[in-house]
């Protein structure tokens, strides 16, 4: 006779080191993602300064055919603002994780209630991620209007590929955060769910550290 069906949650799977296998998996995934992004960054750096025609990232360029002078295409103030937003999103994410972990603790003051609201911090992180994507959409659109597309030159190809891949990762992260937020509204996230949020947080912070590298290597170093 077969055993009766059960709807109890599956037990956690621990490795022989006593570590949750899901957390081992996300770190292994992040390690592989490091290789992906370093390959894209390598491609960008190798092609840097080798574009025959403009627009260029840091130098003005005069089109010999039309005589039009195109200014340096990178907009550092806008990108600095988007970098700040992404850095702050990492802060919101750790606050969301801490709020989930400490959900059962009493909140005596208004400040503690704010700090202990996982919904607030998950929402703030998602909003910050979406704002970053908005900055990126604005940047891409303005580049295309100024004559730089993925097919224009080596800079355009490597730049749009690198930052586009990063933007796709941010988009996936925002969707992940919104899913967690929906779960939080539906049944509430508590200390038992902390690992789920921790894994999402690790992914989100990884997206942040990749941008830290991109911001310096692509935008700031001339």
């Amino acid at each position, binding site marked *: 006779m077969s055993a009766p069906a059960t709807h109890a949650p599956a037990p956690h799977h621990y490795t022989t*080191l006593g570590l*949750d296998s899901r957390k081992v998996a996300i770190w292994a995934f992040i390690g592989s993602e490091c290789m992906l992004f370093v390959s894209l960054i390598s491609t960008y*750096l190798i092609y840097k*300064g080798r574009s025959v025609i403009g627009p260029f990232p840091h130098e003005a360029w005069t089109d010999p055919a039309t005589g039009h002078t195109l200014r340096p295409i990178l907009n550092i103030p806008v990108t600095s603002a988007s970098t700040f937003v992404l850095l*702050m999103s990492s802060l919101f*994410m750790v606050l969301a994780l801490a709020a989930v972990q400490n959900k059962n603790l009493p909140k005596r003051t208004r*400040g503690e209630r704010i700090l202990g609201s996982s919904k607030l911090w998950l929402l703030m992180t998602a909003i910050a991620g979406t704002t970053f994507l908005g900055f990126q959409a604005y940047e891409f659109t303005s580049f295309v209007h100024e004559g730089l597309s993925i097919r224009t030159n080596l800079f355009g190809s490597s730049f749009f590929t690198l930052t586009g891949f990063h933007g796709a990762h941010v988009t996936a992260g925002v969707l992940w955060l919104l899913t967690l937020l929906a779960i939080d509204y539906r049944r509430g996230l508590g200390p038992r769910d902390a690992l789920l949020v921790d894994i999402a947080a690790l992914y989100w912070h990884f997206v942040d*550290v990749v941008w830290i590298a991109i911001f310096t290597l692509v935008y*700031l*170093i001339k």
Partner: protein
Amino acid sequence: MDNHASLTNLPDSAEAHAHAPGGEEHSHPTWSTYWKVAVILTLITVGEVWAYYVPSFVAGRGFVPTLLFLSALKFAIVVMFYMHLKYDHRLFRVLFTGPLLIAGLTLLALMFLFGHLYIKM
């Protein structure tokens, strides 16, 4: 023991949750640590952007190494404190730093072969 400890002074228990018997456990950052880290990251970013707008510094030999150092510092701070790698099991450190090291060496090799560090044989 005070069962009603202040929420803001409680250690982050992410790793306590993740660590089953056999895992390493250490003390973890508090909320105030997270805020301080955010301020430090912001200040470093402001410093980077400020350096970009100083022509004499940009023209000097120290510009690129300084930016690379500041970027690496921000990278390390986020990984150690926000990703908790400083407090986590060493297997996670290996899983992250191993591929990162391989990727970094690959980047250097490619730069020597095809990039701006090209050496004529």
